[in-house]
């Protein structure tokens, strides 16, 4: 056995992938982190205080983990789901009826709920440890955008089952856009944007119309939300997460007393 492992580890294939020995010496431990695309987002060494669960609550890490779960389960769901008013609801039912021990939809939904909670708690912990103070101001801001994106991801996904719960929750949520100052047709100031009695802002072109691609939550909204949910928002979120993690490292690792 030992010999076999030895042979594998000294083969050209193994060594072309891993450029370090077993990580039990300082040198190899450093290399293990530095030569791995994903691990190298970490610094090589971290403060003993920063990695205790009681300090970070592991909430940022969990948020990221849940994002990965969403990506994976979401990808599988996309195989079975067609974003049209005709099929969307049926496809969700079919998932439940025809897939034995199917839990992908469940995992996707519960992980999404959890992710909202963990991202709030992460922000809470970052605030309570004062970790937004210099030099981490910018990363806090990246975080705030990530928070908004997390909520938007959840919100756009809420519509996709195309049942009563979904459609009306999105209706209630998007009704607010009607009242956007100047840009919503029931918002203050909208009536000022008129020319000779002709209103520029009306139900057919205001902020809500842009959001829903229509005057109510219909097929256009479904497609729009689907594309944002599956492609647009995750891409932006992934890019910002890379920046976020890189900045954690560049700002001196997890915060600690100066």
């Amino acid at each position, binding site marked *: 056995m030992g010999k076999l492992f030895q042979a594998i580890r000294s083969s050209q294939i193994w060594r072309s992938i891993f450029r370090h020995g077993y*990580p039990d010496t*300082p040198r190899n*431990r*450093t290399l293990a*982190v530095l030569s791995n695309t994903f*691990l190298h987002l970490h610094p090589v*060494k*971290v*403060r*003993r*205080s920063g990695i*205790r*669960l009681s300090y970070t*609550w*592991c909430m940022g890490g*969990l948020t990221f983990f849940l994002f990965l*779960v969403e990506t994976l389960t979401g990808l599988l769901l996309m195989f079975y789901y067609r974003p049209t008013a005709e099929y969307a609801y049926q496809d*969700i*039912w079919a998932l439940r009826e025809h897939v034995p021990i199917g839990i992908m939809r*469940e995992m*996707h939904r*519960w992980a999404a*709920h*959890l992710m909202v*909670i963990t991202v*709030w*708690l992460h922000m*809470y912990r970052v*605030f*309570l440890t*004062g*970790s*937004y*103070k*210099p030099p981490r101001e910018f990363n*806090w*801001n990246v975080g705030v955008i990530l*928070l*908004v994106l997390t909520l938007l991801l*959840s*919100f756009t996904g809420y519509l996709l089952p195309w*049942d*009563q*719960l979904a*459609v009306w*929750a999105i*209706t209630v949520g998007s*009704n*607010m856009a009607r*009242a*956007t*100052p100047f840009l*919503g047709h*029931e*918002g*203050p*100031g909208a*009536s000022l944007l008129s020319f000779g009695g002709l209103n520029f802002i009306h139900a057919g072109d205001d902020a809500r119309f842009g959001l829903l691609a229509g005057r109510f939550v219909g097929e256009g909204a479904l497609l729009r939300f689907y594309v944002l949910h599956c492609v647009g928002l995750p891409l932006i979120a992934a890019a910002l997460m890379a920046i976020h993690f890189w900045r954690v490292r560049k700002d001196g690792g997890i915060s*600690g*007393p100066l």
Partner: protein
Amino acid sequence: MGELIKDAIDWLFDPIRYFVGSALILGVVFYWRKFFSRNIVIATFFVGFTAFMLWAPSDPDFKKIITKPDNVPIIILITTVIFFTWLAMRQGVINDERAKEGKPSIEGELGKKKVFTWPDLVYTEFICLVLFTAVLIAWSILIEAPIEEPAATARTPNPSKAPWYFLGLQEMLVYFDPWIAGVVLPSFIIVGLMAIPYLDTNPKGNGYYTIEQRPFAILFFWSGFILFWVSFVILGTFLRGPNWSFFGPFEYWDIHKLEPLVNVNLSTYFWVDALGKPLPENALLREAPGIALILGYFFVLPPLLGKTMLRGLVEKMGIARFNVFMQLLLWFGLLPLKMLARWVFNLKYFIGIPEWFFNV
């Protein structure tokens, strides 16, 4: 006995008592934090909460709302927010004690030593990952994701609720028109959050838990996050039923429960009740008292405070920071002020110009 407790809880949870009570509890916990950060406190809470959750579902109305699959996260939210608030407070209290004795904070003491990411950090991450995967799979097997009837734009369910994480905004609709509750305040929440690092010039409390070195910041965030966000989400999920009427946790969601609408505009109070005149025709004249009040609130109050009570703050922050901070703070303060005015005076709008959709 059981009925009596239920009635008492229903009574206790009406929006005013619920909100004022939560604010009081936060204040008490903050003031007596040394007592509340003891292990026995959190242990008692969890025992009490578990006992309650085992007993309460024997009531059919409570069971109906608590066993909705999408409401499970709210229970998680309640328990985790309370637990982590306690945990942070505990470490803050310990660090504050240590600071008084001239010792460094726990983080300061441990942080002197650095350890390798591999294995120390990577292993912690890995264990978290495995544990959470297990939890997620168990949860997914136990509780099926809901699916209701197919979408029908002609049939409006009652109540229609936004997704739970936006229920704080929907609750604000009780007090404000959508342009404030749904557009202006959320925008200011985002802008306000982003501004925090640039407005908080206190260099202390960076990288360790503390309360005494930044009491205002902590209280501020507690009230924003716990009082006006999380507690609103809970209120919106469990205590708001058909027509967004209020229902106690043990109350049946009766569609015909009507809350009398007796709210009155400030203009009516001013012209009709105080001066005994009819409301003026001209909208601007009619709303002049409210407009003066709001303008004064946003533009006279800050310089006034800056010259008097908050003089020290202006010197510390600089005039630009102070003004941005005040504007954000005053927008935030508009919410509790409006809530109070509604409860005490049945006030509908400070400024009510429905012709222009401009109601404050």
